[in-house]
């Protein structure tokens, strides 16, 4: 049997990031029974919540659950304590991306999120075919995934070869301002 030293630092960090109080969770497991992806991971949502309460970040980062969470909001909808559990999963993903902590070497979902975010910053909109191509190039294990489906979609005219662009200057300004406000908040939080 393994034991752990409980720490409140993680639930405080989560609260600072997304204003959700994990301490309210009393482990009824309604979130886990409604979760569509719990069966595909090692941990289920209620266990993630318990790990947050106990400050066991490694346990969370070593499992793939947060990367399987689709953000379907079923847990958030049903939680009798009105905890935005999906919002906490999002905050854990933000922390994992900041710290570069992924359960597998090539972290497929994290790679796609990063490319998707880069694409939006570059064009103001998501450029679908560029995202698909860059994912294939940067993640060798996924190279052959869905090639047949992709070709079929292309020939059905469902993939646009050229990007359509948003207001790129406005996007650049919003990215810059939001990143600097968030950074200032994090620094203030760390100093407290």
């Amino acid at each position: 049997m393994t034991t752990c030293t409980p720490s409140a630092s993680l639930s405080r960090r989560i609260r600072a990031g997304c204003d959700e109080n994990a301490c309210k969770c009393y482990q009824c497991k309604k979130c886990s029974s409604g979760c569509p992806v719990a069966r595909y991971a090692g941990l289920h949502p209620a266990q993630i919540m318990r790990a947050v309460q106990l400050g066991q970040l490694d346990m969370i980062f070593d499992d793939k659950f947060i990367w399987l969470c689709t953000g379907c909001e079923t847990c958030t909808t049903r939680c009798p304590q009105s905890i935005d559990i999906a919002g906490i999963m999002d905050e854990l993903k933000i922390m994992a991306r900041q710290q570069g902590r992924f359960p597998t070497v090539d972290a497929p979902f994290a790679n796609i999120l990063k490319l998707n975010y880069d694409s939006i910053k570059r064009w103001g909109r998501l450029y679908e075919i560029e995202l698909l191509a860059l994912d294939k190039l940067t993640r060798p294990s996924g190279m052959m995934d869905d090639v047949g489906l992709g070709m079929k979609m292309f020939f059905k005219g469902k993939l646009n070869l050229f990007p359509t662009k948003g207001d790129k200057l406005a996007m650049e300004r919003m990215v810059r301002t939001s990143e600097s406000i968030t950074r200032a908040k994090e620094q203030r939080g760390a100093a407290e």
Partner: protein
Amino acid sequence: MSKTLAYYPGCSLHGTASELDSSFKAATAALDVTLQEIPGWECCGNSAVHSANRLLGLALPVNELAKVEQDMKLDAVAVPCAACYSRFMVGAHEIGDRETAADVKAVVGRGYDGSVTVMNLIDVFHDAVGLDAIKEKLVKPFDGLKVACYYGCLLTRPPKVTMADNPEYPMHMDEVVEAVGCKPVDWNYKTDCCGASLALCEQSVVVDLSRRILADAKACGAEAVVVACPLCQANLDGRQQAMLADDSAWQSIPIIYLSQLIGRAVGVHGKVLGLKKHLVDVTAVMA
């Protein structure tokens, strides 16, 4: 009476879901709704944004809402993509908090007064047009086609954000399809997640989730599944060849956009509806 709505297509409708764009425009035009696309619209702040930069994820949709309110001077915006719709609703909801509102205002560069109603694909037909107005315009109604109305995750959840009447068993889409002569079936997976956000990285999970949804729709007697989200459509439609590869007895079921169904009933040509863009053939049920 004609109604003018601002229109936010979002990235999918300009790419993988071009048939949702064309069928939505044609169906609304036939029902006397005028759409005005938001000039220079940007990404809605999808999960890649809000799971990296929470503030930007809120500011992007609020920026579009401010354009509708102050530049276009309209009181409602149609957002047919369920994922974009969710970001718009979350943005509008979160700025109810004063500190968040101040941060979002700093990023957007101006305030937003909250006067714009955000409408998803179902809302446009159910509320902006109305069931009676649809019935008046029927040219080629369906003759009792049995359909499963699939709402997926984000049209109703979380209810404190979407204000959905019945988040676990919604009925508005069922009422709309009934108005065009279809027979909506009762079934068990109306609001279950199809896993579309994992489409590019966890194929086996996505196929499994989608198979459960479609198997239930078929078991409950549906001849087609009606959807109101481009990600659900691409997923449920595109993944059926993998289901067939796993099980040669798999009977494919067509996945149709609500706007295509209504478009057909109010006399829009099949070519405009993009019926040939589907991977599972829809011509038999849409004939």
